[in-house]
C-alpha cells in the first residue's frame, strides 16, 4: 500500500478554495515533487498533511491511518517530519540543540527523571546527543554543531532544518523549498543529500521552485494550479505536458 494517501482533500480560507479536491499518493521509498505556480496551494497541502491545518473535506492517510484529526506532534511521532518554507529554526540555539529538538519525540524522560537524573535519563540523553551529531554530520554540518543557528548561511540553515527533521526518525520527510536561497554548488549537493535520504529508507516529498532540481531528483511529480491537481507523472512526461507548460510560462493565445 502507499505510504501516504490524500483523498479528495479540500481546504477553504474565507471563501477561497486554497486546496480543491486533491487526491494523490506517495509510494514508499520514492522521491515525489509537488510543483505549481506561486499561490497554487502547495504549502497548504503540506500544512494539511502535518496537521497545521484541518481539511474541510477529504481524508489523509499515512500508513493506512487517518491523520487529519491528530495534533502535529503526534503526526511527527507517527513518522512524518517536515521543513518550513520560511526557515523556522530556533535561531538563538546551537545547531546541535536544534537537532536535539527532533530527537525529543523519541525520548521519554520527564521533569522528575531530569531532576533526579536517573540512570535511564542519562543514557537517553547521551544516545540523543550521538544521534543528533550523526544527523548533523549526515547533512554536512558536523563542524558547525556549536554554532548558533542564526549565524549559519542560508543554505546551511536549510540543511540544519533537514537534520532536525531527520532526527525525528521519520518514514516520510516533507521538504518545503529546500533549495530556496541556495547557490548552485549547494543545490547540487542537495540533490545528493535528497538521494541519500531516500537510500536510508525515508520517503521524500518536496516542494521546489528550482525546476532543474525537481527534474533531476524526483521520480514522480504532482502539479497543482489554483488549488487543483492538473497533472501527475514522471519528469519527462511532466515537461512535455502542455497544461504544465501553460501554467508555468503562461498562455500562448492572444
Amino acid at each position, binding site marked *: 500500500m502507499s505510504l501516504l494517501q490524500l483523498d479528495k482533500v479540500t481546504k477553504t480560507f474565507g471563501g477561497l478554495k486554497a486546496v480543491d479536491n486533491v487526491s494523490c499518493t506517495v509510494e514508499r521509498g520514492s522521491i515525489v515533487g509537488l510543483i505549481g505556480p506561486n499561490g497554487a496551494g502547495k504549502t497548504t497541502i503540506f500544512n494539511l498533511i502535518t496537521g497545521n491545518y484541518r481539511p474541510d473535506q477529504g481524508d489523509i492517510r499515512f500508513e493506512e491511518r487517518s491523520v487529519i484529526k491528530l495534533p502535529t506532534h503526534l503526526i511527527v511521532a507517527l513518522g512524518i517530519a517536515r521543513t518550513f518554507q520560511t526557515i523556522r529554526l530556533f535561531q538563538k540555539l546551537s545547531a546541535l540543540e536544534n537537532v536535539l529538538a527532533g530527537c525529543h519525540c523519541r525520548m521519554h524522560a520527564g521533569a522528575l527523571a531530569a531532576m533526579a537524573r536517573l540512570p535511564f535519563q542519562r543514557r537517553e540523553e547521551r544516545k540523543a546527543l550521538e544521534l543528533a551529531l550523526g544527523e548533523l554530520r549526515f547533512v554536512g554540518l558536523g563542524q558547525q554543531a556549536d554554532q548558533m543557528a542564526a549565524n549559519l548561511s542560508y543554505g546551511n540553515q536549510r540543511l540544519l532544518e533537514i537534520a532536525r527533521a531527520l532526527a525525528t526518525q521519520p518514514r516520510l520527510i516533507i521538504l518545503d523549498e529546500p533549495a530556496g*536561497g541556495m547557490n548552485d554548488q549547494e543545490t547540487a549537493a542537495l540533490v545528493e543529500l535528497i538521494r541519500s535520504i531516500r537510500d536510508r529508507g525515508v520517503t521524500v516529498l518536496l516542494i521546489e521552485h528550482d525546476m*532543474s532540481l525537481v527534474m533531476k531528483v524526483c521520480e514522480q511529480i504532482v502539479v497543482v494550479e489554483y488549488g487543483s491537481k492538473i497533472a501527475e507523472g514522471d519528469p519527462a512526461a511532466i515537461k512535455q505536458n502542455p497544461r504544465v507548460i501553460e501554467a508555468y*510560462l*503562461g498562455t500562448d493565445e492572444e
Partner: protein
Amino acid sequence: MLLKLENLHVKYGNVEALHGISLGVGEGEIVTILGANGAGKSTTLMAISGLVKVSEGSILSRNAPLHTLKAHEVVRHGIAQSPEGRRVFGTLTVNENLTLGAFTATDTGRIQKTLAWIYTLFPRLQERCEQMAGTLSGGEQQMLAIGRALMAAPRILLLDEPSLGLAPILVKTIFETIREINRAGVTVVLVEQNARAALKLAHRGYVMEVGRIVLEDTAEALLSNPEVRNAYLGGQAA
C-alpha cells in the same frame, strides 16, 4: 535613465537576498523582471519603494538618490507600487482605498481627473466604489491595487505579480490594461512569473536567479531564448 539601480545589495538579517543588482529603466518603457520564486524580484521592487533597507549600492531616479529615502518619501518622487498579494485595505471601501492612493497629492482637480481615468480603465471599480475592498473578487482587488497606485499619478508604476492567483481570462484583461496605462505615458516595471505574457507586453526584460541578474535582453529575444524556458522548467531540458 528614469530609474537606475546600481550594484544593489539587500540583506535580511545575516542573509543577503540581493547580491548586486544593476538595471535601468528608460522613460516610457515597460520592463519586466522574471525569475523563479525566491529569486529576489519582489525584494528588488521593495528596495526601490524603500520598504526594505539597501545595504550597498544605489537607486537613482533622474539622478536623485532614492535609496536614502523613507518609503513615504519615495512616493513623492513619482514612484508607486502595486505590491505582491495586492494588499488592498480590506476593511476600507474601494473609494477610500483609491483616495489613499492619492495621499501625497494636493491638487483636488487633478485627483478627480485621475480618478475618472481609473474608472474608465476599470469600470468595475466605479460600480463597487462603496463596497469594502475585502469583499471584492481577486481580479477586482488586483484592479483596485493598480488603480490605487495610479492615483498617485506616478511616472513609474511598479507592478508585482499582477496575475497572481487570477484566472487566465482576467490575466489577459489586466495585461491589456497595463499596456493602456503605459500608452498614457506611465513607465512600468513589471515583476511576473507568467513569463510569456509578460514578455509579450514588455519592451525589455531581465531574468533573475538567486539574487542575481543572469539575463538581460529585449523582450523579443528573451521570448525565443531557450534559457528562459530552462529557468522555469529546469535545465538541460529539451
